[in-house]
């Protein structure tokens, strides 16, 4: 087994090592090469701007020669690079892989499909490309001797990046939050969200939201958005307040340990997807919860 890791991080290098055999890393700068030194048998350095998917894919397609599997992270840019490279190489690409094994020239991998309502077990012939879902391969890649090589290529891109705008990044790291209080259309105006922030504060958690709050009403920046096209979260407690529970939202919270929900509509679908549901007007119960929990924590 020979695996090439592109955009390497420790999780990917570990995932590659679980397949056995040789692990190589493709990086796009000297600095990245240093970061993975001692974690891959071979480090290939391509002097390419990795933000340009066509140029990066050219490097991947060239570097992939002789490898059984190309592994990448499940970022939007990496998936784009993966799609381009896979088509050039004439191979299949599996994205957001949860688990995988390689045997007898076949890669068997699992991934969520159908709005995260099913798991697909997919078998593709090697060579293949795969992107790995975050948080699924936790471990240290073994220490090895690394040989560094330059990948000779004259990259061409027809894309031009005219500007880059950073998204406002507050202290919100929902993917890492242990407790999330999430808000939806049950809140009648923007100022009322303050209640949710207070509840999150007394719980030591962060505030998430459903699609309408971030995308339509724009009451909160997109970094708070939980769901299929927002963040996928895995807190120990997800408390959905005034969220009806559309499938796209549920798809983002599947990995939560406990889901609790507050909604005044007893037929809201969120109750079918929650461990504990409270049928109540959030405007009545949230202040009580803030009060009780702060007392609990205080004494």
């Amino acid at each position, binding site marked *: 087994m020979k695996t090439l890791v592109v955009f390497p991080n420790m999780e990917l290098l570990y995932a590659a090592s679980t397949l056995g055999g040789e692990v190589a890393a493709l990086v796009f700068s000297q600095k990245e090469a240093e970061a993975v030194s001692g974690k891959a048998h071979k480090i290939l350095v391509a002097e390419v701007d990795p933000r340009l998917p066509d140029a990066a894919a050219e490097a991947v397609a060239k570097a992939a020669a002789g490898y059984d599997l190309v592994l990448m992270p499940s970022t939007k840019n990496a*998936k784009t690079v993966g799609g381009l490279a896979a088509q050039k190489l004439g191979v*299949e690409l599996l994205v957001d892989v949860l688990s995988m094994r390689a045997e007898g020239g076949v890669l068997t991998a699992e991934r969520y499909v159908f709005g995260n309502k099913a798991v697909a077990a997919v078998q593709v012939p090697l060579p293949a490309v795969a992107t790995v879902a975050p948080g699924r391969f936790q471990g240290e890649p073994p220490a090895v001797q690394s040989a560094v090589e330059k990948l000779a290529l004259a990259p061409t891109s027809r894309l031009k990046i*005219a500007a880059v705008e950073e998204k406002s990044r507050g202290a919100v790291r929902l993917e890492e939050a242990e407790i999330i209080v999430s808000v939806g259309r049950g809140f009648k105006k923007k100022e009322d969200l303050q209640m949710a922030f207070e509840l999150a504060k007394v719980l030591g958690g962060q505030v998430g939201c459903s699609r309408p709050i971030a995308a339509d009403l724009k009451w909160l920046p997109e970094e708070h958005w939980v769901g299929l096209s927002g963040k996928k979260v895995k807190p120990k407690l997800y408390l959905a307040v005034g969220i009806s529970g559309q499938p796209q939202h549920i798809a983002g919270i599947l990995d939560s340990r406990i889901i609790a929900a507050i909604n005044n509509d007893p037929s809201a679908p969120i109750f079918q997807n929650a461990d*504990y549901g409270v049928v109540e007007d959030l405007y009545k119960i949230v202040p009580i919860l803030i009060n009780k929990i702060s007392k609990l924590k205080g004494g």
Partner: protein
Amino acid sequence: MKIAVLIKTALDTGQLRVRDAVVVEETPLKISDIDRNAVEEAVKLKGQDKAYGVTVLKWGPLQKKVQEAENVLREALAMGLDEAYLVADEKLLNASHLATAKAIAAVVKKVGADLVLAGEATVDNYTGQIPARVAAELGWPVITYARELKVEGGRVVARRDLEDHVEVVEAPLPAVVSVTREINQPRIPTLLAIRAAMKKPINRLTLADLGIGVETKISAAYKPLVIQRKKVVIKDGTPEEKAEKLIQHLRQEGVI
């Protein structure tokens, strides 16, 4: 500008038929939601030229699903596309994205489009790889995850929405662009438009018609994901009592 819009006749994940496995054959098809945004963008940009819907049927059985797929395409035609191409072939009824992209690229060449628009991902499989693959197959540049799009002087300029930042990216035409839901508000067709769509052509093609062959060695099995939630619903008592009960449960679970 001639535009090809990729339309997935996707499994309706809200109506999955489930026994031991997901019964794909019995699950109805619908338009992949984000493709409506791609159709809307195409209708806005096409000007005097035509905009074509392009679909590769991925879910069988062929005869049954072809009819459903045509109904899905009528929706896109009612939104303003001029004509649709439906590639229906037994050899494409599988999980191979490599084969799908080859078929799509062949149709794009056939209609002579200058721009391919697609949704950022499809609602059933949600891989988002087809736009990039089609671009690679055609040898065109690709811009993925566009939340704004302009076409000027033979170039596309898009705001590409990534995890931590937005890039303003330019590419020369012909090009492939995948769009997010934020790019526009898809129109709801009028009754008149729905009637007119009944007369618009839907051209059915096989791989042989396109002059290509595909060999696929891929298999996929779909198991329903059963997540056992406790579904304890607290609905009796005063708000005070309900709050107390919720806190008790959460403390017993050790999460607060």
